[in-house]
């Protein structure tokens, strides 16, 4: 609470007070009077700040309005600006002279207009407002944590920071489709269905005649085919085709691999954007749209429908999955702490304060007996007093068990030698003193010499223990303990969990990653494991996706379009279940499209590859001339990086081509998300399906 400025001022004034009141008051009293007056002023400011801090700062309340289109809204749309109004007030009767109210900007939103902080005076009945405008470039979840209020006195001596937690989450729905997406496919393709393509015919209430059958009691008279009945001399009923609309099922990959990247610019966000546009355009054409999200563990299907509520639900789901973050597995605990600790300190200042969340020195003490050699030190500490006690006991009682002869000889020599040295030292130092003094001094010397090994070992023990109070490891331990205490409080696991989280790296990493995800803070994640393998391949998702496709096929009613938006380029041999599922779908006359996200830093596979740069020419004039890599490490690093990148790109292209070949063989269309306009292609395919029906 006291700032460095306050500490220095108090220190200097105290010094002047001591000098003025106790050293030079008989020469001049002005320094003493000055110091007393300044001290009185300091105490006055201290009292005032404390009073206001308790009476007003602790009673601060916050209220938030999020407005889009001029009214309070529970959900937001991406790429549409919205206004935030935050009102901070307090219920006390005291005025806070100076406060800085700062609303914490959520991740994934851009500030368009206004400021998120306000320098203000908060009095009774005088709330302060912070108004600003934000825009979310991508769908997801927008989380407002609360408002940071910093209070200081006008001289900068005292300071307090509180965080008014008012956590609230808003779904940011994908943007509404643009003019292109809204376009109704009025133009029918003038084409016949390819040979072998047939509709799934079912009787229903359509316009086209499906079949004729014998009349059954209960059939409406208008369905009787009179001419045929007259010809056959029995009642025949007409059956019409079922008018099944075009159905499109979107399969969206939400596995960890597509969640990587900066917030709002992940592969998942881009795919969710494409999905949203396709879904809305299809719904605008009165087609049914379903959405199945899947990762490497499970799939969550939403059956096709075309109501407005269904579309909102689809958009909500897309917004939710867009906010998903990769699990930070494999991140070292200290790196997680470096991310989580400042965040916890910012959001929970009162719970992370050293007064409420302590770290006693005894916990930092470095225990000696954890080390094997610590027992040797303990032995050295214990053995001299024990031997001394044994000797005294043997003098008092001769029946005491004797030590082995060799050991006994050493002990006796040690006692007699120290005894004689003590006598000599005493007679040299206090030879003329009274007998009692000489005896006392002798015993002090003698015991000191006897117990010297114990004292030295004890000092070593203390030094070793105190060494635990300093260093980076101690600071890390303190941070980890404070975070563990916060987590144990949030989870309700009590003090048991604190030491568990401090000691168990796995449990700690899991809990910290949950904390970071909850507060939407991303952490740099290692992409490759210790063997150089890509960590986010998620091969199991092929099985899950295949299961979802087969399930969709089993629930299909007519020729449907399955659009798979998944990062499956690198699955290789693990694609087999997906290939089988695509075959099943194609066997039932369904269409399959695969849209693969493409990393921004990888060139297109259709582009011509540049030949690798030739190694720098080295003159042959001097055969012993050194290669540039030997004396230019930066150049060498650059060249190596280029080679690695080129190899990785080639490998990625190869795997993509293999995947395209495999799936293309089943009849599925494979394309990249950045290749042309995938939305247009999906809509065209839907039109084609619709055309097939209309043309038959």
């Amino acid at each position, binding site marked *: 609470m006291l700032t460095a400025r306050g500490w220095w001022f108090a220190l200097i004034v105290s010094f*002047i007070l001591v000098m003025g009141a106790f050293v030079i008051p008989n020469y001049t009293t002005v320094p003493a009077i000055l110091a007393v007056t300044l001290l*009185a*002023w300091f105490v006055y400011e201290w009292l005032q700040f404390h009073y206001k801090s308790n009476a007003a700062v602790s009673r601060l309340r916050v209220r938030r309005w999020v407005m889009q289109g001029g009214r309070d809204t529970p959900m937001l749309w991406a790429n549409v600006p919205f206004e935030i109004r935050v009102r901070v007030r307090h219920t006390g009767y005291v005025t806070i002279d100076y406060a800085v109210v700062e609303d914490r900007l959520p991740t994934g939103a851009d500030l368009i207009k206004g400021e998120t902080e306000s320098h203000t005076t908060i009095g009774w009945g005088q709330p302060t407002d912070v108004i600003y405008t934000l825009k979310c470039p991508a769908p997801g979840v927008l989380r407002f944590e609360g408002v940071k209020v910093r209070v200081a006195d*006008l001289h900068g001596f005292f300071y307090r920071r509180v965080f008014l937690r008012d956590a609230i989450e808003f779904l940011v729905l994908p943007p509404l489709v643009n003019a292109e997406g809204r376009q109704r496919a009025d133009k029918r393709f003038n084409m016949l269905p390819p040979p072998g393509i047939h509709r799934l015919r079912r009787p229903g209430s359509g316009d086209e005649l499906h079949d004729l059958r014998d009349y059954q009691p209960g059939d409406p008279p208008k369905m009787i085919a009179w001419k045929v009945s007259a010809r056959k001399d029995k009642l025949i009923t007409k059956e019409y085709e079922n008018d099944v609309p075009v159905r499109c099922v979107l399969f969206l990959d939400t596995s960890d691999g597509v969640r990587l990247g900066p917030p709002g610019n992940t592969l998942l966000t881009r795919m969710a954007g494409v999905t949203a546009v396709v879904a809305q355009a299809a719904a605008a054409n009165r087609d049914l749209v379903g959405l199945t999200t899947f990762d490497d563990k499970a799939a969550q299907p939403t059956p096709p429908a075309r109501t407005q509520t269904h579309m909102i639900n689809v958009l909500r789901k897309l917004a939710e999955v867009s906010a998903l973050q990769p699990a930070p597995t494999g991140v070292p605990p200290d790196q997680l702490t470096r991310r989580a600790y400042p965040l916890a300190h910012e959001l929970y200042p009162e719970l992370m304060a050293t007064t409420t969340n302590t770290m006693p020195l005894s916990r930092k003490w470095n225990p000696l007996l954890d080390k094997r050699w610590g027992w040797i030190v303990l032995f050295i500490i214990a053995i001299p007093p024990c031997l001394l006690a044994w000797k005294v006991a043997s003098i008092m009682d001769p029946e005491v068990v004797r030590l082995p002869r060799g050991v006994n000889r050493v002990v006796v020599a040690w006692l007699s030698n120290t005894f004689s040295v003590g006598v000599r030292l005493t007679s040299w130092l206090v030879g003329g003193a009274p007998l009692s003094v000489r005896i006392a001094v002798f015993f002090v010397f003698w015991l000191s010499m006897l117990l010297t090994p114990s004292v030295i070992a004890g000092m070593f023990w203390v030094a070793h223990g105190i060494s635990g109070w300093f260093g980076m490891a101690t600071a890390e331990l303190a941070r980890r303990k404070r975070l563990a205490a916060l987590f144990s409080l949030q989870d309700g696991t*009590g*003090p048991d969990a*604190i030491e568990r989280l401090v000691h168990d790296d796995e449990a700690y990493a899991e809990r910290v990653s949950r904390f970071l995800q909850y507060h939407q803070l991303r952490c740099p994640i290692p992409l490759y494991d210790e063997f150089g393998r890509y960590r986010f391949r998620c091969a199991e998702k092929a099985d899950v996706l295949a299961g979802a496709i087969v399930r969709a096929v089993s629930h299909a009613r007519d020729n449907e379009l399955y659009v798979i938006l998944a990062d499956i380029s690198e699955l290789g041999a693990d694609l087999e279940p997906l290939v089988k599922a695509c075959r099943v779908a194609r066997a039932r006359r369904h269409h399959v499209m695969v849209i693969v996200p493409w990393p921004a830093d990888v060139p297109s596979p259709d582009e011509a590859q540049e030949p690798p740069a030739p190694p720098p020419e080295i003159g042959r004039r001097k055969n012993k001339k050194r290669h540039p890599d030997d004396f230019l490490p930066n150049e060498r690093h650059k060249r190596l990086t280029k080679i690695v990148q080129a190899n990785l790109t080639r490998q990625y292209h190869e795997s993509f081509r293999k995947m395209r070949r495999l799936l293309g063989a089943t009849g599925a269309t494979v394309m990249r998300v950045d290749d042309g306009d995938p939305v247009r292609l999906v809509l065209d395919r839907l039109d084609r399906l619709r055309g097939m029906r209309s043309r038959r």
Partner: protein
Amino acid sequence: MIAEKKLPAKLSQRQVIGILFRDRAARAYTFSALGALAMIFVVMYLNGSDIGGVLVVLLGSAALVLRWTAMPPFLLLVIAYFHACPFGIPDFGSENPYQVRETYFQVADMVLVMAILVYLRAQYRLFGFVHQIMPFENVFRRKGDVPTRRPSSHIRPDEIAWLVGITGGIVLLGQGAWWLVNALEFAPMENFPLRWSDPKSLRVFRRDLPPGEFRAGQHRFFVILGAMFFGTLLLRLVFSYWQLRMMSAAEGAMVMTDTSWAESHRERVRVEKWRIWGRTRAAEAAKQAEQERKQAARKAEQQREKQAAKERERERKANRAQRD
């Protein structure tokens, strides 16, 4: 006004001077500080310390313009020094045991203290405009940390009046406190350890004091020490209790959890170490068992292959024998 514009995180000297002298709201503080420095100079000059006065004015003005945040406390030391040694030479002069009794509520002292107080208050508030009013969040300034400055538009019109008024009150309070400190005597042998001193008595100046009696400086020491100790204790108790009353449920739960942990952390550490040790051992045992299983499987495979080879050999021999 200058301050109403959006100022950069780091102010240039030109911008600082602009705030100090061209901003209407802030320049009242600037002139208050300069006026206070001038008054300090006058009082010190009258006291015979012209060098000290000039030094104070120069250093104070430089601190004002150049934002030397360490200067105000340093100026206090300079003023105190030049009051003890007006000519700057470290010589206190002759001792006057009655000095303390003769210096209550003297106009020159009050004017000087008032000027110093006005200067300090104005200077620190100006630092809030041109340097920083709140500390950084971290102990050490990190890259990207922007200092928080109070905008001059936040200055209330009556701030200077309140500043001067409260300063006058504090000056009187300080004089009263100094008088009280010297008017009280420490009497540890009596029921109440404080008593009023007799201003005309010369008892405290005797060389041979009776047992249980103290000199004037010792009385002052005990009174100041006692006032500081018991005052701090009282205020601490009051505000701590208040703080406990205002504590949120989460904060209270954290205090309870932390206390519980602090009382038992040794045992918990031991238990956790055993747990980790047990887990490591179990993992090692599992690994060893796995290796043994693989080894056994490999042996069995080799055995089977040997057996199969023998069988084949036997069959081959049998076939050959049959052929023969």
